[in-house]
């Protein structure tokens, strides 16, 4: 499916990272694997350290911290946006929507369109597409898009397939109408027949969590996880990305009538360095145009990784200059999506920490 948006822009990006950090070396003994095997994996995938929430910190805690920062710094006014979209796979509650929790905690205006979207690694693209569609309404001048996940709370620390790469984080992206901003092209594909490649089997209404679903079960590869934990079929996900993403980008480039060399940066979801370098090789994109340094510093925080790779590598440049970028996200669903747009100069592009010891998690 193709999308086209006119006269809209990204005005600012803020990322919020838990200050708590763990290293691969510290966690290596959790895995049922010899040291030299783990070290080789670390080098190949680019694992080094990741940021994780501690204790009961939830998505709304990270989001509220980020929005309060923007209000305090006068980078965003409390009454100056008309929609709040939250993309997360780890909501505070099954109900109410966590976007409503954020609205209530910050006492935002009632004349506000709030919605939650359950999406993961393509969630930044899904959020942008939804946000830009809302901006077609005359009553909506500005949209706050929040991507946030604390999915580490659902990953078994004894799962070498998933735990070393997981990270928690949030991002706030401000979208607004902008006369003369030009055309933004996007495309999106979904295939629910492959939905079980990435899933948390228990905890919903199909299979409620219970003492039985919490039992840790070893798999043939020596990993241990329960039905309450994230389960990823690594081979299937890897193959999906390598098969589906290059033609998606090719189609987008054709629609936008741009060549690879016209793009200043390919800002892709960050699953691991190996997967990204294989994509870059396939599409003949120089590695320096496709940064793959998020997982080694922060871990893979689902839909947040695209704002994160943007801010980490280009925050100074984007404050003053414009770049032509290609975003791409791919993962749970399965879902894959890409967007080509002019990005910058931004009103803000910053990274802040969530200082867990100083702020008590929200109590109902």
């Amino acid at each position, binding site marked *: 499916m193709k999308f086209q948006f006119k006269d809209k822009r990204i005005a600012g990006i803020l990322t919020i990272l838990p200050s708590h950090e763990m290293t691969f070396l510290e966690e290596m003994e959790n895995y049922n694997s010899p040291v030299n*095997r783990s070290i080789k994996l670390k080098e190949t*995938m680019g694992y080094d350290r990741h940021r994780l929430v501690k204790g009961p910190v939830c998505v709304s805690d990270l989001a509220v911290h980020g929005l309060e920062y923007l209000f305090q710094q006068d980078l965003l006014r409390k009454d100056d946006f008309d929609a709040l979209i939250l993309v997360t796979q780890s909501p505070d509650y099954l109900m109410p929507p966590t976007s409503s929790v954020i609205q209530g905690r910050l006492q935002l205006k009632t004349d506000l369109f709030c919605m939650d979207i359950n999406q993961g690694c393509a969630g930044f693209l899904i959020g942008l597409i939804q946000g830009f569609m809302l901006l077609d309404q005359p009553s909506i001048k500005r949209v706050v898009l929040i991507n946030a996940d604390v999915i580490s709370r659902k990953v078994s620390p004894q799962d070498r397939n998933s735990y070393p790469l997981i990270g928690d984080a949030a991002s706030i992206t401000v979208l607004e109408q902008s006369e003369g901003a030009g055309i933004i092209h996007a495309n999106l594909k979904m295939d629910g027949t492959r939905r079980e490649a990435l899933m948390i089997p228990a905890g919903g209404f199909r299979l409620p969590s219970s003492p039985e679903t919490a039992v840790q079960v070893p798999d*043939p*590869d020596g990993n241990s996880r329960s039905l309450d934990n994230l389960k990823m079929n690594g*081979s299937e996900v890897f*193959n999906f990305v390598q098969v589906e993403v290059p033609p998606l980008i090719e189609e987008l480039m054709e629609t936008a009538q741009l060549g690879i060399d016209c793009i200043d940066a390919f800002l892709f979801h960050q699953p691991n360095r190996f997967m990204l370098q294989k994509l870059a*090789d396939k599409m003949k994109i120089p590695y320096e145009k496709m940064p793959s340094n998020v997982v080694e510093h922060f871990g893979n925080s689902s839909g947040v990784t695209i704002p994160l790779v943007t801010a980490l590598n280009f925050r100074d440049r984007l404050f003053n200059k414009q770049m032509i970028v290609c975003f791409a996200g791919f993962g749970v669903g399965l879902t894959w999506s890409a967007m080509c747009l002019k990005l910058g100069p931004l009103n803000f592009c910053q990274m802040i920490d969530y200082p867990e010891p100083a702020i008590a998690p929200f109590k109902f």
Partner: protein
Amino acid sequence: MNSIEQILQNIRPEFDFRTSSDFIEEGLLDSLDVVTLVSDLDRTYGISIDGVDILPEHFCNLAAIEALLAKYGVNL
């Protein structure tokens, strides 16, 4: 021992790959070991194995790996 066997042995020194007919099915390599193997093969032979070729059937035994490398012009 040829180079492929040496690479495999470095990844999982506890196994004898010459006696296995299916490294994946018999548990000598898991999906993450295959990633390490691809990275080592790329580096050793100066190639870049296409991501779409990173499938279990191309790494299940020595003959399959040799056939894959031949596709990339590696003469063993």
